[in-house]
């Protein structure tokens, strides 16, 4: 188990290093930072001074190490638009994003998992087909279309709810629904197939054959085993809490991290983009670590043997 944990931790760190390296490479490949930040018609002496000040004349690996060190200190640069530290700008947007994504996560879990289990247990019934069709539809309708259709119906036609902004809880209803419905569809589809696979396993047949009641067999054997793959995708959903709302926040003009990211990309505000990238990577990596720990709890085999896929 310790070895398992150690491996997972090492892999998580490696992923973070890869993300930072990715950011560094992309940053350097995207052009001369001096020219990017100073305008092109700045006097050459000013550009030279800038290079000197920022160490752009040093060997590339020195810049790389310095970049790492800066990130460790939490120094992620200043926004090019208003000169405030990027990390501050991002941090103050986090609550707004969580206000959308946490209720949406509750909808995904509360709707998607039961629907998937129900569909699998009543396979080929009308309910199963309805759930699957809805799930496929929910998966194929992009969130911006779903969001705009909801706005069209509930805000424009019926006038029940506001179409955008963040003044009251009523403003949050449509974006939360938009986020939740799509995710619930994905989760239902996934849970159903995980369940079906487990239901077809020999140990289920054995349990039923030796007279274990159906409900008990499902509770004792099927659900815990189907939980293992489902936990992965839920982990991904939790990990993308900060990033999952990029499109929806834009549709509803919700001032969260996602909206900030889109604006920053449009303005090429590199410090902010990089800060969000690292933040998302960190959440994702932590969520994956938690998922791995849960695996250990759910699947006793993993406590003593490394996972094949990662070994």
């Amino acid at each position, binding site marked *: 188990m310790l070895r398992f944990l150690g491996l997972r931790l090492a*892999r998580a760190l*490696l*992923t973070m290093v*890869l*993300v930072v390296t*990715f*950011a560094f490479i*992309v*940053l350097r*490949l*995207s052009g001369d930072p001096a020219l990017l930040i100073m305008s092109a018609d700045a006097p050459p002496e000013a550009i030279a001074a800038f290079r000197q000040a920022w160490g752009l004349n040093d060997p590339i690996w020195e810049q790389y190490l310095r970049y790492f060190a800066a990130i460790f200190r939490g120094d992620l640069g200043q926004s090019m638009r208003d000169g405030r530290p990027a990390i501050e700008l991002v941090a103050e947007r986090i609550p707004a994003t969580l206000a959308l994504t946490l209720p949406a996560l509750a909808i995904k879990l509360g709707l998607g998992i039961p629907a998937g289990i129900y569909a699998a247990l009543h396979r*080929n019934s009308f309910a199963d*087909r309805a759930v*699957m069709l809805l799930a*496929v*539809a929910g*998966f*194929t*309708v*992009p*969130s*911006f*279309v779903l969001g*705009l*259709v909801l*706005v*069209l119906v509930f805000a*424009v036609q019926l006038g029940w709810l506001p*179409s955008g902004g963040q003044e009251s809880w009523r403003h949050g209803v449509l974006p939360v629904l938009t986020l939740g419905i799509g995710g619930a569809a994905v989760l239902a589809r996934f849970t159903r*197939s995980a369940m*079906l*696979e487990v239901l*077809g396993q020999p140990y289920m047949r054995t349990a039923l054959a030796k007279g274990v009641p159906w409900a008990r067999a499902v509770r004792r054997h099927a659900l815990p085993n189907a939980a293992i793959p489902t936990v992965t995708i839920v982990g991904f959903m939790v*990990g*993308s809490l900060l*990033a*999952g709302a*990029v*499109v929806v926040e*834009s*549709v509803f003009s919700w001032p969260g991290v996602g909206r900030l*990211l*889109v604006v*920053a*990309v*449009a303005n*090429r*505000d*590199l410090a902010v*983009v*990089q800060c*969000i*990238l690292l933040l*998302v*990577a960190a959440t*994702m*990596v932590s969520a*994956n670590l938690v998922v791995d720990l849960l695996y250990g709890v759910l699947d006793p085999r993993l406590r003593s043997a490394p996972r094949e896929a*990662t070994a």
Partner: protein
Amino acid sequence: MSDIPLSAMPAPAVWAPPARRRARVPVLVVLAVLWLVLMLVVAFAADLLSPFPYTALDLRNRLSPPVGMGGVWLHALGTDELGRDVLSRLITSIRMSLLIAFGATVISAVLGVTLGFLAAHFRGLVEQAVLALVDFQASMPFLILALAVLAFFGNALPLFICLLGLNGWERYARIARGLAVSAGSQGYAAAVTGLGASPWRVYGRHVLPNIASTLIVSMTLAFPEIILLESGLSFLGLGVQPPMTSLGNMVGYGREYLTRAPWILLAPSSVIVLTTLSVSLLGDWLRDRLDPTLR
């Protein structure tokens, strides 16, 4: 789709190509295929089919509603606020979106299969490196990576297609590596290697055709994702740039006229939904028919 058992049947011990019997094809799948054929025809014959150039202005008919909502047949799907014909723009957008999605899917498959084969062939460090990349890719929401690259590099169509081609390669890499390793450890690939075949021949002539059906199914399943990704980015104004247009672009533009002229937005939205839905249905059906091992 409901007529086909969705269960992942255990792989038969003896592999046989799918029997050439005429199974009843579900109605939904037939409809999906018909829709996709229509989309392909539209994409290929866009210039012949569109009634107007997609940038042509008709200032006398601005925000004209489509037929059925009080519009005229001249602009069957209405016009936008510059008087551009929505149908013509839609046709051009379909071509653009499909082109991007095809290009990206192919790039992603080629990249993934190549890396997967490299990992399977060389093992050791190469394999570990590929697996680390796979992990990295699988653990980051691709939209965020894509946005970061767009922020750093700005946008141009070829770059945009290549960028989308980075989406989902890790799935092909996993499949290709897994299947190549199992074919190489004792199966036909090892036998052909033992006959003196070069790696090119082993992978190109034997392994690739053997895993092609699995790959095609995965490509079909990944295709809607790419369409959604492209339209999402274009919707945000970070994908295809005007004056070019794509389905996501049209939705993003139509959003400004949501209250006054919802048709501008509804036409491309429906096309996106119907197309992704059709490809998904087709992909699910193909998977159940060709490759029950894939989920």
